[in-house]
């Protein structure tokens, strides 16, 4: 059974994401980008009006860029250099393992985050490339297919899904804005994933959808815990003490991720699914810099 919403539901989620993208976006401002010609300041030299640097005149240089005030002072011919204007490259990797869709609210929030990122990229005129990752498998996911509300091939598959999403499989481009949409609910150290996000001068952002039933479940007594990704069942007797320790472990898990992300200059934002998308983004993503207001 497909976990991806049908076209009608996806269209509704897209609409909500579009509304959110009208007030906030991925963090493009205040950063230097590489890429094709666009409207954002690039790292290289270009033809924008933003002064970047001086250098000595070399034969063949365009004399229009000679800095005559410097010549007046020094008598040397010096060239003015201006920053290039480029379009940022956005690379979005979405974790489509079963845990992303286990809860209806969380499932909707996950899809909304994808559409938000795509809308944000489109509005900024950025180049956008999307990938779907499920465990150790990843596929390129065309934006047209996303905007056509087609489900990714790997969505909800349980094969090898117990493994964390291996984002090293994604061919990240140098200097791109890398957005990972994942709930981060897998064991193990976050270092490898964060390193992949920050490699090659990439700017990493993690948008982690979460639900209140994960944070504070109503388990009590004997419970059969069916893992949505592994597919097996574990019988567990839950008493209040164990439940209390679980909640603490849940908090610690995300504290570890946050601390590790800071070390790798990756911005992590936990986006709750119990409130509207814009409200959820403002609650945590703004403060971490994962999202910025448009105006």
């Amino acid at each position, binding site marked *: 059974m497909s976990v991806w919403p049908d076209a009608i539901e996806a269209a509704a989620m897209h609409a909500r994401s579009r509304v959110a993208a009208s007030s906030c976006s991925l963090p493009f401002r205040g950063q230097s980008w590489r890429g094709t010609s666009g409207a954002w300041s690039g790292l290289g030299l270009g033809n924008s009006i933003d002064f970047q640097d001086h250098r000595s005149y070399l034969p063949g240089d365009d004399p229009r860029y000679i800095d005559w005030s410097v010549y007046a002072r020094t008598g040397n011919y010096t060239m003015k250099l201006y920053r290039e204007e480029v379009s940022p490259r956005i690379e979005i990797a979405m974790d489509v393992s079963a*845990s992303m869709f*286990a*809860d209806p609210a969380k499932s909707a929030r996950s899809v909304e985050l994808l559409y938000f990122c795509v809308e944000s990229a489109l509005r900024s005129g950025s180049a956008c490339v999307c990938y779907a990752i499920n465990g150790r498998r990843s596929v390129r996911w065309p934006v047209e297919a996303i905007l056509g509300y087609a489900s990714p091939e790997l969505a909800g598959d349980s094969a090898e899904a117990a493994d964390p999403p291996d984002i090293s499989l994604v061919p990240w481009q140098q200097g791109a804005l890398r957005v990972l949409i994942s*709930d981060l*609910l*897998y*064991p193990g150290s976050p270092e490898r994933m964060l390193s992949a996000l920050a490699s090659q001068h990439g700017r990493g952002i993690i948008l982690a959808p979460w639900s209140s039933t*994960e944070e*504070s*479940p*109503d*388990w*009590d*007594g*004997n*419970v*059969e*815990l*069916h*893992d*949505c*990704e*592994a597919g097996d*069942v*574990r*019988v*567990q*007797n839950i*008493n*209040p003490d*164990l*439940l209390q*320790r*679980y909640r603490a*472990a*849940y908090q610690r*898990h995300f504290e570890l991720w946050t601390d590790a992300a800071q070390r790798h200059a990756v911005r992590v934002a936990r986006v709750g699914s119990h409130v509207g998308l814009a409200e959820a983004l403002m609650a945590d993503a703004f403060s971490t810099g994962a999202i910025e207001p448009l105006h």
Partner: protein
Amino acid sequence: MSAAELTFGNPAGAWALLGLVVVAAIHLLQRQSRRVTVTTRFLLETLQPVSAHGRRIERIRNSLPLWLQLLIVLIATWILLQPRWLAPDTRQTVVVVLDSSLSMDAFREEIARRLSVELPLLAGAARATNWVVIESDPARPRLYAGPSLDGAMNAVEEWRPRLGSHDIEPVLRLANALAGRGGSVVFVSDREIALPSGIQWLGVGAPIPNVGWLGARVDDVGWTALVRNHDSSPATRTWAVRDADDQIGPQTSVTLQGGETRKLSGLFPDQTDRVTLELSPDRFDADDQLPIVRPAAKELGVAVRSGDRLGPFLERLRSSLADAIAVDENPDLQLVEFDVSAALEIPSASMVFAADPEPRSKLLPGVVVAEDHPLVTNLSWQGLLVRDSQLVRALDGDDVLLWHGDRPLIFLRGRGSDQSLVINFDVSQSNADRIPAFIVLLNRFVDRVRAEKVGFMRANFDVNQPLDVATTPDGSPPVIEGRDDGMLRAPERAGFFTVTEDGVARLEGSAQFADPREAEFHQAASGGSLAATASDLLEQNSRPSSLTPAFLLVLFGVVLGSWWAVERRKVAL
């Protein structure tokens, strides 16, 4: 002033305490495991590496909802118990009237058991209770009167019913008077009867099968007895004859259909004047034994003092008297031909027959009228023809029995053993000897003389039958073997007995079960209860706890608190 005493109007409310067990069970039992799909199981696996299924029944967890729910049960129980405060000076009298009918003897143990359960219900209705136990036999003394319920129960256990069917109205009036205002009367019987209002019936009985003797007759040949099956179903018993030496004869089986009465007969063993017919015992044993004596009346010595006219008549009369022997000296009774013209004194202890030496031929006119006297009761004097003759003049103290016009035809003179019967006409000039009433009168007088005679007799009686035993005027009071109350009655239980005066036997007799109505148990039934009476008395003697509304409010508050605690627990989870 002593403090009011706490009691409960509804002790059955204590069953609500079972709610404590229910609450504990609910908190002990774990919910059945449910299946949930999770995304964070890896976190639990780090906390509890080994899967652990909880026990079905777990130790009670100390929680606020648990204690609040237990408190709810306790408060609800207290309210259901209907606590009441007995006024410190409340007193009551409970009169227990035991039906003295002999049929109650079959249920004595059940009666004691039933009363041991029912009477304590009344005990709690007042601070002090005065118990009075009486039986419906008005001749019996009070069985118990005092504050101890144990004493009353002991009296019940020792009591034996003895009467046949009898009127209970007088004892119920007495019981009501003893109970007084605020008291209660309980009538214990083995069958339901209509009682005046205010008297509670307590029935202890059941239809039980019974076969028993009805009675016996003795003649010159032997004895003839009746045995009856009082039940509606066939029954088989065995019977035997026990002689005076306490030797029992062979057992004989008898099978009786439901309601059948059968005649059995036999002889007295040689040289013995008493036997006991014994049936195999059943639950009602009062009619299982039938003692029989060979009757022997007191012998009368009868002398004839005749003249010329009535000699043959008097001799015939003497020879017709039962148990009479002819004597000349010291007779018990004289049959006297009395010459009216001789103007002699009427002899005492005699039957005096007036003889007119010059009888007239004219018949006396007028009608014969009898007085209301036991000697002439129910006797018809129609057809009596008497010729006119000289009279014995009746004196003022004489009891006239029969009048012919204004002429005293037959009268009594004297008292006691000296009394004489005067036939104041010439029987030879009448047809009196052919009138049955005349013969019966003479025999009645002879029986009276026999009864007055101090002598030995043997007879069969019913149990508790009054006895007519002549004793010497200056002798000691007669002693009845088998009775210790001094009453001149046959014993209350079947058996042989002797009446003695100064060690001399005056009477040997048998007391036989005599009331077959007591042997029928078709209508025996149990029923009634004192719970309602106890409740009414308690309400009368106590007031409800004034804190009950407060407890209701507290209960309401605890219920709300328990609900809040449960909801808060859900939210916390």
